[in-house]
């Protein structure tokens, strides 16, 4: 097979100095602070030794609670969110211990066209020194057991024992989701 990829620009690492421009004051706020149903998804980004990354950037993208994207490429049409100020996108730099937090609302499930549904999830990009390309993962929710059981992405994981690395655990005020770049409990990362 010949290389079908046109002259795309290669990725390079975000490096350790991303803080000069990438963090936004409102970056972690996918929804305004007073939004109904607001939750905080927090956790740590960890390296192969279990140490937190102090220089990572976590970005999230998600549907609103009704499963809508305010985006022209959504084939169902563009629907304004019922959540005022819903942005869909979150961006948070990690702190000295590798901790990040995103304030959002839980997304709705998404139809996949054959009558099935994807369970509520966020797509996640992690950028950091030492990552020559972003790594992509997903955040699911541990209190969505039935939806998760029917989710085609979770069902297709080559190693079912790793699916737990994609599921955030409920805690007061939100959910906990750690991202392990390497090691025994390495998070599942996707080729998208």
């Amino acid at each position, binding site marked *: 097979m010949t290389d079908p*990829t*046109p002259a795309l*620009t290669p990725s390079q690492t975000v490096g350790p100095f991303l803080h000069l421009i990438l963090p936004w004051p409102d970056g972690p706020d996918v929804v305004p602070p007073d939004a109904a149903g607001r939750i905080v998804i927090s956790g740590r980004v960890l390296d192969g030794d279990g140490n937190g990354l102090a220089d990572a950037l976590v970005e999230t993208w998600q549907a609103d609670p009704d499963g809508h994207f305010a985006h022209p*490429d959504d084939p169902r049409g563009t629907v304004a969110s019922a959540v005022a100020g819903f942005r869909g996108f979150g961006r948070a730099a990690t702190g000295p211990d590798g901790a990040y937090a995103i304030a959002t609302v839980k997304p709705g499930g*998404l139809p996949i066209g054959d009558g099935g549904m994807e369970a509520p*999830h966020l797509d996640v990009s992690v950028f950091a020194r030492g990552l020559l390309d972003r790594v992509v993962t997903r955040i699911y929710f541990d209190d969505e057991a039935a939806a998760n059981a029917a989710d085609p992405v979770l069902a297709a994981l080559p190693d079912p024992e790793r699916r737990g690395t994609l599921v955030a655990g409920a805690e007061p005020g939100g959910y906990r989701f750690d991202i392990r770049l390497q090691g025994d409990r390495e998070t599942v990362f996707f080729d998208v």
Partner: protein
Amino acid sequence: MTGQRVNNRVAAPADAVGDRYVRPRGVHPRLDSPDYRSTRLRAPGQPLVPLPQRLTEITGPLFGTDRVTDSDADLTRQHDGEPLGQRIVVRGRVLDGDDRPVPHTLVEIWQANASGRYRHAMDNWPAPIDPNFSGGGRVVTGADGTYEFTTIQPGAYPWGNHPNAWRPAHIHFSLFGRAFTQRLVTQMYFPGDPLLPYDPIYQSTPEAARERLISRFDWDATRPDWALGFAFDIVLRGRAATPTEEPHDD
């Protein structure tokens, strides 16, 4: 070569049915590039798992002028005084893999100053801070995908990767495109930089794609009695050749 990802391992051949965006092959650096020492504890050890491109992947944040202020496109005018160094204009087009412009999309940039020092708490090598240079900028592409900013030629700087390691001069770029799949963070280098053959980050890029990271000197972008000019086009992933009616349906 098979459908397997050649630069980063994947667990199984991706099911291309329904892909809206072409999956890059032979373009991006291998995550596992041990000559770049920071990869050793950070690059995932397990193969990447193919993710079908459904609704979350074919949509994405559409940031534009709402994220940009007047001073963001000229890094030489963000302080009361002017920064030291060679003034340059950097311009180009943001395209997708089908040569279509990507209009009205946010481009974020950051860089070291003329001495090769970042204005960052973690950069403390003995080169001077420039009080008149912060090193961060934002621009939005026009309807034709073009962008332009004015800055200072960044300097090279040493880093701890290996003995006497130096990074070639570069400007960091961050782009969204119009879909989660198109997100790209990269670095722009300068033509003729003698450090490029020795840089493990640049060298981690597949050889056939590497030179796309090097800007070219652009007479037409120069400003007489003011600034030199460089051109740097950025190509994001394009639509798959035969998009299906329902790209989320596979």
